[in-house]
């Protein structure tokens, strides 16, 4: 049973009518995607661009979310791949376990986390989500389901982590959870008046468990790169007082707001954005340096506003996330920030983060040792021109773009950014026969 429905990524552009069906492992063999158009699996649709959509056939996997086993001694969790981080938190935080790596939204499936090799605020310490996957079962092009791990089907294991769902459908996942002693995070906020200071802070706090910076992408001159660096540690019970110490895993239930409608397109302009950024800096730099915040507030601030993507109006937006090697990060970031503030385009929340070592064994995994910058642009011809300009700066400095966020980069930009990985990935796709069968708008656009 299949049906047509309009789909888009979280950025709401591009939007296409897609033929969809439930991802049902028992019936995968009966599917016959049209020759040359293939199919792709989709979870909660939280990647930004066209990575999880295929007009010919998109398989919806989020309802396959059953927990299959949990070892309370080791923290090993086995579940159907549609299980989300939100569910993991709900079930396992009260028992003292936390996802080893979490991105900035909890509405993501484990299959999605693997497909983009997602990173979190602790990448510099523990790597990306793929580093905490012990094994997964992959439905392959030949109709077989294979167990992939660091011991068996190693090439498939590595190519699938970060492989955008293009090596097969990820059906079952075994991941290692992290032991915690409370649901609270000790947050430390440090101000950086320019980019150099922000980098200095990151380098000086390499042993912080979590670190991320909000960066004012519109500040000019001496204030270029002005940032607030947020460091975080899982709080131990002795850091808690009163009721929190008695029930360290109870965190206040959050009242979610919902963005009720699309913001009008004129609401976002360089004045409102500049004003917002200035205000955000002032409000947050006035807060005490060390604060105790619950994990929901610390990790998922935007999840509290359901459908916040409507803030950018009905035309949608594009998120831009790039990473640079350590040696060229500073120069590249200054050039990018210069181009952004010159154009007067930017976003409410631009994020800067120090990455630890990448995973060269995974051909399409995004993180590399150095810095990553992420920000949104409301879609407009000017924004698209700016992003093309940013692509050039990124390529010139040995950087690359994150495919989970992308909806517009060129094949050349991809091949420059993943120079070693793309040929390996393509030949694995050819060798396993997955190239004609597993396709998305992204794979077609980038010829993956």
């Amino acid at each position: 049973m299949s049906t047509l429905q309009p789909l888009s990524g979280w950025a709401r552009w591009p939007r296409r009518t897609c033929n969809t069906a439930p991802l049902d492992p028992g019936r995968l063999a009966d599917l016959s995607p049209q020759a040359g158009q293939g199919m792709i699996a989709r979870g909660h649709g939280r990647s930004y661009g066209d990575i999880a959509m295929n007009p010919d056939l998109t398989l919806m996997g989020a309802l396959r979310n059953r927990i299959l086993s949990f070892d309370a001694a080791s923290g090993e969790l086995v579940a159907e791949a549609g299980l989300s981080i939100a569910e993991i938190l709900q079930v396992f935080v009260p028992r003292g376990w936390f996802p080893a790596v979490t991105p900035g939204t909890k509405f993501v499936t484990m299959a999605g986390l693997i497909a983009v090799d997602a990173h979190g605020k602790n990448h510099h310490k523990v790597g990306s989500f793929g580093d905490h996957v012990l094994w997964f079962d992959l439905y392959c092009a030949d109709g077989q389901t294979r167990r992939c791990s660091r011991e068996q089907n190693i090439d498939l294991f590595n190519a699938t982590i970060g492989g955008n769902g293009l090596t097969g459908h990820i059906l079952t996942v075994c991941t290692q959870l992290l032991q915690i002693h409370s649901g609270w995070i000790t947050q430390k906020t440090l101000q950086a008046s320019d980019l150099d200071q922000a980098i200095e802070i990151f380098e000086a706090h390499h042993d912080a468990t979590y670190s991320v910076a909000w960066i004012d992408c519109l500040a000019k001159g001496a204030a270029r790169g002005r940032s607030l660096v947020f460091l975080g540690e899982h709080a131990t019970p002795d850091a808690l007082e009163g009721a929190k110490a008695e029930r360290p895993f109870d965190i206040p239930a959050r009242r979610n707001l919902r963005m009720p409608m699309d913001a009008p397109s004129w609401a976002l302009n360089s004045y409102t954005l500049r004003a917002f950024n200035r205000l955000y800096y002032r409000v947050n730099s006035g807060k005490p340096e060390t604060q105790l915040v619950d994990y929901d507030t610390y990790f998922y601030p935007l999840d509290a506003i359901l459908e916040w993507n409507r803030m950018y109006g009905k035309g949608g937006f594009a998120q831009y996330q790039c990473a640079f090697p350590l040696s060229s990060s500073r120069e590249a970031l200054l050039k990018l920030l210069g181009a952004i503030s010159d154009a007067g385009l930017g976003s409410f929340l631009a994020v800067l983060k120090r990455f630890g070592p990448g995973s060269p064994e995974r051909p399409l995994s995004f993180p590399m040792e150095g810095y990553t910058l992420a920000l949104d642009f409301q879609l407009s011809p000017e924004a698209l021109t700016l992003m093309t300009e940013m692509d050039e700066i990124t390529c010139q400095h040995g950087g690359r773009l994150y495919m989970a966020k992308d909806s517009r980069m060129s094949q050349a930009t991809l091949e420059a950014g993943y120079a070693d990985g793309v040929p390996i990935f393509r030949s694995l796709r050819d060798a396993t026969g997955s190239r004609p069968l597993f396709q998305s708008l992204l794979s077609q656009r980038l010829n993956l």
Partner: protein
Amino acid sequence: MTPADRPALILGARSGIARGIAAALAKRGHPLMLAARRAGELDSDVSDLSIRYNCAVTAHEFDVLDLDGHAGFLDGLPATPSIIICAIGVLGDQNRDAGDAQATKLIVDSNYLAPCLFLEQAATRMAEPGGSIVAIGSVAGDRGRAKNYVYGSAKAGFATYMSGLRQKYADSDLHVMTVKPGFVRTAMTEGMDLPGPLTSDAEPFAERVVSAMEKGRQVYSDLRWRALMAVITHLPERIFMKTKF
């Protein structure tokens, strides 16, 4: 009695609605007995519910169409159910089924005859200790529509049967509730073109069903559907027949 002393039997446990209701009951601490055909495939639901909610969950082979097996099935359960959720139903394919004796009989047997016979027998056993029978009907039974009247008429009969059962046991401790879901977003309907605002997700829907059960409601249906169906059922037949609904 605490929820731990009130085990729940879920019939047709593979369906999305049943899965949602099972979760809502497990959250409250009820031990669960999941029943369906090919019970082996319920293993993942057993592990999921027992790990998520720290409760006892078992799976049981059950074919409602095996009418002679009903008594033996009830006798063989590890505990006498205090709650029965009946989520048995076969949607069928209207175009294929209409006029086909075999297919129509299967729809009527699965949606009406067999569940009614089973619940009649279960009710007899539950009347004394008391408990709740919650049967999932359908708004399709409220008015015959060209799109699904084979299924809809069987569901109409089922609803009438439940209404009678409810009256029969009105003076006992047995509570009989009929649920009339509209379109709930589940695996079963995922491929279907569902109307947006009238579609509810299985989880919040199940939560409302169980809380209606706890309050002792007779019929539970979503407010929006109740409003819509109030209009639909009151349209004069000569007008209704001309509509495309």
